[in-house]
């Protein structure tokens, strides 16, 4: 039997022109694979190879990259993931969003390590990639269809062995925070759905038969068994037993739960939308991604056949952030976002911002008030179809603030245009730094600095320069996790993450990877994202927080204050330690 040139990789990517369906198979040098691994790292490298960072994110020439990883298809738990990388139409900076699960396996079996889509189809299309052969079919009949209907329809027509990634109406209407959906999960942040929509691609269907071989299959299987066993332990129990939504009451108790567009860190009605309460009145089932042993998904019933996958970020964004205390509304709003293909964090953030503008008399939409269930659901519908005020809100809070004027930009809850996740920056100040310097904007997935705030390493309400090295460490870990790709919910099971990552890579690829090498790799990946941003026009002034968070204490906690000078010093130290 012939020895493959590479283990764990195919050593090439597909470049597909959506204008005519032309496909090229482009080799990727092994040195590049070793330097950037896969997922976010490889995607960022391909983005720079294939596109101009200064170009419009929604231009036909702007690349959209689906990047797989060497671990995809292996027996390693949680490894069935893919990264979607592009320039963000929301931030005009790099965007990398991750999702699970079957699409990653089927996409890689098309015989490639990534798929790069360029161009623009003449009309709404479905891109079908069958073992590496590409065809475009009309999607006219799917125009306006929700993500689940699109997927179900295509699976019914093409066959269940196809895996589908699709956009909903929001992606078709270039909502700047539209998602790409797959199996109810979303490459959620930064508007990759709008980028796919700009190419007139409603959905991508993949299937394939080409498997990679592993360098040391027996050792890989043994290691994978051990990792799976550890994944059943206490480090993942929170996700398994309660899901991420369990954060809600904890954050509320610590005064770190963003409420009414960050006007408070506590929500009086938090208990009513907590998972502890919702499960007493709604049915609940658990689910997991393909090839995952954690099973973090908690799906709540809404009295019909379809459940709602509820995560903390959706719960805070569509709950406390908008002042919503009715659990049914939060569940319905979350489902609506999933159907339309909208990022729940940016939707909640932008709508909450608009609610505050209405409260201040700066936006003439009197129905759009904090706490109104009807208003939230109506606003999401309008955003998804860019109707009425939804056309403005589909632009995200930063652009909406520029239109609304007054001093509203001071409390538009965003960094670089990306709406802030559910971590109050004044109460979690290492996270505040992570938000400020994030390559794709305010982001809890590329910086896990909140972990540091939940420890004795720092005083979460009085960050000092010592917090910087901790923030960098979590960012580096995330960069490697997002490139390998494995689930961040596993991070607690690793004693030495970089050493174990080297073990995994050795078994899959045969490389003599070491922990030190992978620390450098992580920094290289963070660096290439910065390089893209620099070429796209990044300036240091972007690494900050909105004025609301600076020099003004959190109303419910006078000790939670971060001054502009303090944040500037943290950011400067961050740049210094990064060597920038």
């Amino acid at each position, binding site marked *: 039997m012939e020895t493959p040139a590479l283990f764990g990789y195919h050593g090439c990517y597909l470049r597909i022109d959506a204008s005519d369906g032309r496909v090229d198979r482009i080799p990727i040098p092994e040195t590049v694979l070793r330097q950037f691994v896969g997922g976010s790292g490889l995607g960022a490298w391909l983005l720079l190879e294939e596109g101009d960072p200064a170009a419009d994110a929604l231009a036909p020439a702007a690349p959209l990259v689906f990047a797989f990883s060497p671990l995809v298809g292996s027996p390693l738990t949680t490894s069935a993931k893919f990264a979607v990388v592009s320039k963000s139409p929301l931030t005009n900076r790099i965007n990398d969003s991750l999702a699970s699960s079957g699409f990653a396996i089927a996409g890689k079996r098309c015989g490639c390590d990534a798929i790069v889509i360029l161009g623009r189809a003449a009309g709404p299309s479905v891109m079908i990639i069958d073992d590496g052969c590409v065809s475009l079919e009309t999607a006219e009949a799917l125009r306006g269809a929700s993500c689940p209907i699109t997927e179900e329809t295509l699976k019914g027509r093409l066959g269940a062995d196809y895996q589908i990634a699709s956009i909903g109406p929001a992606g078709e209407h270039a909502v700047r925070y539209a998602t790409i959906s797959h199996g109810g999960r979303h490459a959620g942040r930064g508007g990759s759905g709008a980028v796919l929509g700009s190419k007139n691609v409603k959905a991508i269907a993949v299937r394939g038969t080409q498997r990679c071989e592993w360098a040391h299959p027996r050792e890989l299987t043994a290691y994978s068994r051990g990792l799976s066993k550890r994944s059943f332990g*206490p480090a993942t*129990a929170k996700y398994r037993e309660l899901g991420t939504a369990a954060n809600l*009451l904890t954050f509320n108790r610590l005064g770190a739960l963003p409420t009414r567009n960050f006007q408070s860190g506590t929500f009086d009605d938090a208990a009513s939308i907590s998972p502890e309460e919702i499960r007493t009145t709604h049915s609940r089932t658990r689910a997991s991604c393909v090839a995952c042993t954690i099973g973090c998904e908690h799906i709540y019933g809404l009295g019909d056949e379809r459940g709602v996958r509820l995560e903390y970020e959706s719960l805070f964004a569509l709950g406390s952030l908008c002042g919503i205390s009715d659990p049914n509304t939060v569940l319905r709003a979350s489902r609506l976002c999933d159907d339309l293909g909208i990022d729940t964090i940016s939707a909640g953030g932008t709508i909450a911002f608009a609610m505050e503008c209405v409260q201040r008399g700066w936006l003439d939409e009197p129905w759009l008030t904090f706490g109104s269930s009807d208003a939230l659901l109506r606003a999401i519908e309008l955003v998804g179809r860019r109707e009425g005020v939804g056309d403005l809100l589909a632009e995200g809070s930063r652009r909406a603030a520029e239109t609304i004027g007054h001093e509203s930009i001071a409390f538009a809850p965003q960094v670089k245009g990306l709406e802030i996740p559910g971590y109050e920056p004044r109460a979690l100040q290492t996270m505040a730094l992570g938000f400020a310097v994030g390559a794709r904007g305010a982001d809890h997935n590329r910086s896990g600095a909140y972990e540091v705030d939940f420890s004795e390493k720092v005083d979460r309400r009085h960050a000092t320069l010592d917090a910087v090295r901790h923030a960098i460490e979590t960012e580096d870990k995330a960069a490697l996790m997002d490139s390998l790709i494995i689930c961040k919910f596993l991070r607690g099971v690793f004693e030495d993450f970089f050493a174990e990552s080297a073990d995994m890579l050795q078994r899959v690829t045969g490389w003599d990877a070491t922990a030190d090498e992978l620390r450098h790799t992580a920094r290289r990946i963070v660096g290439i994202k910065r390089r893209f941003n620099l070429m796209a026009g990044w300036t240091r002034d972007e690494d900050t927080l909105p004025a609301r968070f600076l020099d003004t204490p959190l109303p419910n906690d006078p000790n939670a204050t971060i001054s502009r000078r303090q944040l500037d010093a943290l950011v400067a130290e961050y740049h210094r330690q990064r060597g920038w």
Partner: protein
Amino acid sequence: MKSGMHVELLGLPRERAGVADLDVEADTLGQLLAALAIRFPSFGDMIAADRLKPSFTANLNGERFISDPATGLKPSDSVLILSADAGG
């Protein structure tokens, strides 16, 4: 003289205990955790002797996080026991 202080359980600890809060007599964090381990056998995978295992953490009065079993506690204190992992 031991004193009763307020203990708040959040997330998984609350799930395991079946109660949201309780009063416990203890002068130190170590004593408090040992008392909780006896009262709630379901805390077996959370507490080793007088320390929380790495997946869990303790917070004093909603302000600072603590782990040293010798950390002194006052009757007016409120101790939060929660998951260390805040990822969402």
